[in-house]
């Protein structure tokens, strides 16, 4: 059993991190907040780097890697708040021409919402009559669709043939979302620890106070538990493991970003701090893949009769 990153996986993760650091740095982040919209050049660059084609067989022009590698890549995307319908486009790489290379942007209906509808070239699911929503997350434009679970496959895109509607959530989509949440949870913990090490009050770094220190410790524990669950689900691809990963990653991200805000105090409450961007994105992702009570039901159903 080697339940740890291989050298190749480490290299892949570091490569994605470097690409994102170069192409989506702090300046790019705040530019995206100020002027929302999808950066098509970045999208194509992601495509060229294999972000979308990661799991496509090499014979089909893909990278030929598996879910563990995809989880590592999405974790990095989550970490830096990378905008765009990453999961939907990644999932469409094998069926929507152009998705794999980042030429075509694919959005998907999930839980009554569509992220990035206006920017998408192809939409999976029934999104006709969708109305724009003033999104809580400045980096995720949202539309609401009338009713969930469209009865028949509908093609609302400009490219490719009819696509199956998204009925019950695709477990892979749920897992990749959990990977993004894991990235957020990890980043929130880093930001909190960094602030706690440097911000001084009462003559010492606030991280020397147990009240702050223990908040950070619990953030780390939640993130590490979620990491074990997400990575394991990537290896097994078992729907029950994925449900567990989703619950723990949502919790780590939603509570972690909130604790990160608490550690930052008033400074975290300003628009200029990136803390709220992580918190809001965690809220957006927690809505994907159905209510979390459904994931609890999946796990409960696996307990013996």
């Amino acid at each position, binding site marked *: 059993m080697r339940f740890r990153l291989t050298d190749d996986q480490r290299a892949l993760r570091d490569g994605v991190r470097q690409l994102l650091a170069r192409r989506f740095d702090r300046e790019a982040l705040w530019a995206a907040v100020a002027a929302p919209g999808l950066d098509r050049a970045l999208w194509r660059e992601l495509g060229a780097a294999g972000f979308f084609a990661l799991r496509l067989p090499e014979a089909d022009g893909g990278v030929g890697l598996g879910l563990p590698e995809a989880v590592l890549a999405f974790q990095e995307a989550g970490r830096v708040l990378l905008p765009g319908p990453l999961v939907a486009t990644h999932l469409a790489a094998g069926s929507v021409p152009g998705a794999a290379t980042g030429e075509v942007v694919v959005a998907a209906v999930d839980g009554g919402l569509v992220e990035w509808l206006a920017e998408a070239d192809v939409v999976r699911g029934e999104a006709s009559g969708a109305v724009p929503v003033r999104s809580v997350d400045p980096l995720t434009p949202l539309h609401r669709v009338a009713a969930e679970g469209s009865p028949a496959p509908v093609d609302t895109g400009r490219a490719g043939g009819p696509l199956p509607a998204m009925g019950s959530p695709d477990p892979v989509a749920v897992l990749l979302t959990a990977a993004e949440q894991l990235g957020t949870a990890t980043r929130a913990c880093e930001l909190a620890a960094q602030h706690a090490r440097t911000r001084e009050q009462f003559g010492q770094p606030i991280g020397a106070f*147990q009240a702050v*220190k223990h908040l950070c410790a619990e953030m780390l*524990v939640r993130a590490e*538990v979620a990491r074990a669950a997400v990575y394991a689900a990537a*290896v097994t691809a078992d729907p029950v493991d994925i449900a567990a*990963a989703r619950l723990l990653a949502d919790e780590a991200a939603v509570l972690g970003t909130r604790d990160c805000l608490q550690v930052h105090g008033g400074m975290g409450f300003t628009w200029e701090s990136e803390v709220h961007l992580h918190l809001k994105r965690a809220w957006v992702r927690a809505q994907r893949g159905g209510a979390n009570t459904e994931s609890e*039901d999946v796990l409960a159903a696996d307990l013996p009769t």
Partner: protein
Amino acid sequence: MDLAHSPEEEEFRARLKEWLAKVLPTLPPKPSPDDWPGRRAYDLGWQRMLHDAGYAGLHWPVDAGGQGATPTQHLIFLEETEKAGAPYVGANFVGLLHAGPTIAAEGTPGQRARWLPPVLRGEEVWCQGFSEPDAGSDLAALRTRACRDGDDYVVTGSKIWTSHAEVADWCELLVRTDPHAPKHRGITWLALPMDAPGVTVRPLRTLAGSAEFAEVFLDEVRVPVANRVGDENDGWRVTMVTLSFERGTAFVGEVVACRRVLREIARTARANGRWDDPALRRRLGRLEAEFRALWRLTQWNVSEAEASGGVPGVGGSVFKLRYSQVRQRLYDAAADILGPDCLDLDRPWVLDRLSSLSYTIAAGTSQIQRNIVAERILGLPKGR
């Protein structure tokens, strides 16, 4: 990332399961919890069986008489013995997991030859004399004094939370040899023979009503200097080697057991109708998520330890923090499913619920563990 086992690991597992299936039915009946001599004999008998089958000191180095197994093999061993319902390590706990590894790492060749084989063969029982009434979380504040007198130390003081003290042959004892040095630098590690004159053992009753622990009183007990492991006043460093073992794979069997308990709780809920309450049912679902994750975290920590070839690190603190909370949540859920029966000590899980309350306290409180995680992993400054 891989959760599959190598052919060697699978073979190790298969042989172990085969052996367990063969020997477990031959075990004598389990002694009652308050029959200490019976428990000693039972636990040592099991250790002897492990020894004869080549499983003794599985994770110990070969040159200490162990099997030099990989962390993964150790994990498989703990998983399969728990699943098969094999005896717990019991009275062999301190010898196999604390004192033994310490002696293996820090003892002289003579000390290793004297103390390690009887542990592996199931001949001698060790207990632990670390905590004191005034030195709990602040273990380094211990005050049991040892004064050099010729070839002996003369030891006076008291220890608390000592398991199996009534039937132990040896106690790994921390004493203060230099009261003037900074508190971490005046401590020495001694092997105390429990039959030495001046040693008194008094059972300590816990809130669960049992006497799992004891107090050990030491009144001018003479311990040969030859029983010292490591240098005089270097006992804190020697001890830390031991404690990092404690925080490694110590809970593997328990997590396996908790998953079984959760399944039993679910069965009970289905039987008594509480399963129909979606809130309770989902709570069990979430607990299943927690235990799946804790099992994966164990596998992760073991894999990391295997890769680094070393002792598990602070990952153990991360694990213990969550595990101790989730274990308490498990038995709280059990109580809600039992309803009024949760007040009946004869029902399953009621005593376990009481015992689970110690998990956020024993072997480093959650408060201490959070300090460790925050300072050693996140690099937060120590408080003043």
